[in-house]
């Protein structure tokens, strides 16, 4: 999922939508630039008992990998 350029609360909401649609074992990759979402998407994943595989920052862009 590409949330680059999107601001609060869109990346968080899109992450939640993806988590809801994913089947167990599915990997969700989210990229974005909104700084607070980088911190908050892993919190939302934890609340949904979804595993956070990776949080990476490359310049302005972050990438978060989750596994349902």
């Amino acid at each position: 999922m590409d949330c680059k350029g999107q601001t609060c609360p869109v990346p968080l909401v899109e992450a939640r939508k993806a988590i809801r649609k994913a089947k167990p074992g599915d990997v969700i990759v989210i990229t974005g630039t909104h700084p607070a979402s980088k911190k908050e998407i892993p919190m939302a994943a934890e609340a949904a008992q979804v595993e956070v595989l990776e949080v990476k920052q490359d310049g302005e862009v972050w990438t978060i990998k989750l596994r349902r």
Partner: protein
Amino acid sequence: MANRTTIIVHSGDMDKLYSALIVGNGSLAMGMECNLFFTFWGLQRLKKGGLEKGNLSKMNMLGLGKAMVKKMMRKQNVASLEKLMQDYKELGGRIIACEMTMEIMRIKKEDLRTDLIDEYGAVGTYVQQAKDSSITLFI
């Protein structure tokens, strides 16, 4: 205490509606349930075509301030209230419409966007939800 947010949306101001829908969406995204109880000026925003019609709560300046803020928001790529409402419903958020406001302001069900509304209720409905909500706000 249930993992739930319940918000009274009393204001119909654009900026306050943003607050309500952002906190609502945030709650759902963090895995909570959410109720938005639309009453008084807030309920006007559930009328057909009414969602984006609110003024700014401060510095509206006959709509000039609102136009400036909207321009700034577009520049920053802020989602519209309509998108936030669609996201809110897609994530399972509930909307309650205040029946007392409907009576006082003579608003009929057919004036409202009934597709968005899950329940029609009064103060008892709010209290019933709020007493088991870990977050409750009045906006």
